[in-house]
């Protein structure tokens, strides 16, 4: 016989609630789901995160399965445009052969406005594990200046 342990009971209850909601799609946020639909949601694809340090901006775009050779990047002042194509399954697969088809495919274009001016000569991009990492050096005049305080 097991001894009664209130923590265990709480844990059990929590797990049962989790189970009840499992199929409701709470696990995946709707935005995340939409991220895989370049064809159907062209404006919002790919989803991006923007990071920053003193001299650079980093744009990380989630683009699994996108052909790296199809990717095109353009930077004009502080606007970045990403375009490319995510290829679907081979065309000879008939519709009735699909058990599941959740990954949409298609061409996409997305422009984002960056918070500072960019030195467009030194932009670099890498494609790592389905994530596109764009390194954008800030323009000289947009870099933060440190002003030393004079003590008189």
């Amino acid at each position, binding site marked *: 016989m097991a001894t009664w342990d209130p923590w265990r009971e709480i844990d059990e209850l929590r797990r049962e609630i989790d189970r009840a909601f*499992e199929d409701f799609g709470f696990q995946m946020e709707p935005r995340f789901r939409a991220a895989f639909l370049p064809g159907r949601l062209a404006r919002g694809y790919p989803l991006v995160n923007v990071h920053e340090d003193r001299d650079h901006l980093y744009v990380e775009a989630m683009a699994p399965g996108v052909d790296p050779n199809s990717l095109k990047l353009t930077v004009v002042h502080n606007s970045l445009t990403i375009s490319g194509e995510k290829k679907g399954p081979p065309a000879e697969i008939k519709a009735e*052969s699909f058990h599941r088809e*959740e990954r949409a495919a298609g061409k996409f274009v997305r422009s984002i406005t960056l918070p500072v001016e960019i030195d467009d000569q030194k932009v670099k991009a890498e494609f790592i594990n389905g994530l596109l990492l764009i390194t954008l050096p800030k323009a000289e005049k947009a870099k933060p200046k440190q002003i030393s305080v004079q003590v008189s």
Partner: protein
Amino acid sequence: MAEKTVPVPSGPERSGGSGREITRAQERHLRPAVDIYETSDGLVLMADLPGVAKEGLRVDVDGDLLTITGKANHVAPGDPIYREYELANFYRQFELNEEIDREKISAELKHGVLKLNLPKAEKAKPKQIEVKVA
């Protein structure tokens, strides 16, 4: 291919004792989007796993249960200033039927997409039977 909806092994904790460490539901995870299609040789499963490196990916087959686990990492350095998505670990299970040859399953990870080849066992492949005219 049927999908498993029970993501956590829920056996041992019920047997009493001090089984708390495995009773915790698995940490927050994302279900990868998949395509599964059939060819004459078997099934092909494609799963989007952005941010998952080869070292962070596990594909397990245990009896009828196929489990895909992927550890996703961001690649951007610096401090986040704007966020549209978060990466968590990917987790999804499927049930294989007996037609799939477990020994010949192969996996390939490219540009954040996992491709699993699930070949049919010889006996399950379609055969054409020739009709003889007497």
